[in-house]
């Protein structure tokens, strides 16, 4: 493939947005593997048990790690406790926000909503904005000009990715937007996916968030210590690296503008600790195809449809062996992407996806 300097406009209000609509890529019908209704119904069934168990462990870990961090504060012995506290606060919240946003984690809806609000605050994602943003991400997954959650454009913005190892860029963007929302305004892009009737909630939440952070800053000043911010606020930064590590495996380097999640998403096998922190979102192809299936059923869904999907990556390391060279190559060759191969047993690609993925001319 020849090198090119063509770059695309990834904003939601530019020419690519119109092109996606005109090309039938917006709000389109996506591929779904054949699966018996009875089996899918069983997989979609909700259960409070796994999420209550995981959430109790999660909160207990915050208390224990936070307590030990406090006990050892002032010595190097506090560091490992805050490192793990940070990963729980700044990274595991990514999956809690996500699953509870879909309202699939718990059977009981107020539990989904409560954990969603807590997790959103921790990971610095305004709950109403991100609910609508993620809705669009599922409607138009990795459709340029439509999906607000494309992690990086082509050519990749490596500087932003590196800054976000410690959530630095995300945090700056978050506070800029929270200040804007607290004044009763949205960005032009947000106005494309947040309905009028939902906007007052955005403004109210932004004001509450600012008030909480003001209290944390005041506590730091009052106690002449950074310790309060080590529990609320800073862990989103110093513990955000694991969310990026997992999040980059989801779609980075794969096809854009295809209507088939088998081509633009990765399923990556991960160890039990990662899967606890990530709430099984490593089964990302499965999640996108059937978002009504709760996280605890995704391994079973994977078994049910894997004959129709590209082979999963055996580990996150294996995924990064593909991702890193792809990102580096895209710096010089933005049109390059990884073509996922379907197994012989899989249903074929639809024409539109095959064309976008370069299988058809």
């Amino acid at each position, binding site marked *: 493939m020849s090198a090119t300097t063509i770059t695309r406009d990834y904003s939601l209000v530019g020419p690519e947005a119109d092109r996606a609509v005109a090309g039938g890529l917006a*709000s389109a019908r996506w591929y779904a593997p054949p699966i018996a209704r009875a089996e899918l119904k069983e997989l979609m069934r*909700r259960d409070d048990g796994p999420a209550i168990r995981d959430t109790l462990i999660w909160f207990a870990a915050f208390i224990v790690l936070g307590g030990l961090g406090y006990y050892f504060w002032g010595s190097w012995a506090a560091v490992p406790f805050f490192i793990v506290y940070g990963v729980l606060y700044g990274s595991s919240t990514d999956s809690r926000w996500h699953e509870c946003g879909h309202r699939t984690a718990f*059977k009981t809806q107020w539990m989904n909503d409560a954990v969603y609000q807590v997790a959103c605050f921790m990971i610095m994602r305004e709950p109403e904005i991100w*609910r*609508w943003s993620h*809705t669009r991400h599922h409607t138009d997954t990795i459709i340029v000009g439509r999906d607000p959650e494309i992690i990086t454009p082509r050519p990749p913005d490596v500087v932003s990715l590196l800054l976000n190892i410690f959530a630095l860029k995300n945090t700056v963007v978050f506070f800029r937007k929270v200040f804007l929302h607290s004044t009763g305004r949205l960005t032009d892009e947000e106005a494309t996916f947040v309905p009028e009737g939902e906007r007052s909630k955005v403004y109210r939440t932004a004001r509450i968030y600012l008030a909480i952070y003001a209290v944390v800053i005041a506590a730091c000043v009052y106690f002449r210590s950074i310790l309060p911010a080590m529990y609320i606020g800073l862990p989103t930064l110093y513990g955000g690296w694991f969310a990026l590590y997992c999040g980059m495996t989801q779609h980075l380097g794969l096809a854009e503008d295809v209507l088939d999640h088998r081509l633009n998403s990765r399923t990556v096998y991960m160890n039990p600790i990662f899967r606890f922190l990530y709430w099984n979102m490593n089964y990302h192809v499965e999640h996108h195809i059937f978002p*009504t299936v709760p996280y605890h059923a995704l391994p079973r869904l994977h078994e049910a449809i894997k004959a129709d999907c590209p082979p999963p990556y055996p580990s996150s390391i294996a995924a990064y062996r593909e991702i890193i060279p792809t990102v580096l190559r895209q710096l010089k060759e933005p049109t390059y992407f990884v073509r996922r191969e379907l197994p012989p047993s899989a249903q074929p690609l639809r024409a539109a996806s095959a064309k976008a993925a370069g299988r058809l001319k």
Partner: protein
Amino acid sequence: MSESWVDAGPADRISPEDVARFEYAGRQYALYRTTDDRYFATDGLCTHELVELADGFVSGTIIECPMHNGRFDFTTGEAKGAPACINLTTYPVKVEGGRLLVKLN
């Protein structure tokens, strides 16, 4: 506008606590059966993004859209929160001789 009872097929084609699709005169509808064998009908497409509700998940009297998890009470059509913000239209249903009849405009 005239209304009539339309035959939507055998009632037992819908499992308890589940949903099935029904098309009539070019429009899609969703038919529901509760665990206590009550039947309901609504428009077939989610009011949020026009996704087919018949592929969704039924829990109690809630139908959840298969794409964005928008939730509706199918007995009333009430949208239960974002991203479902607009209620579904509901239609009267009765069972006669084992057949589902839906009253449509």
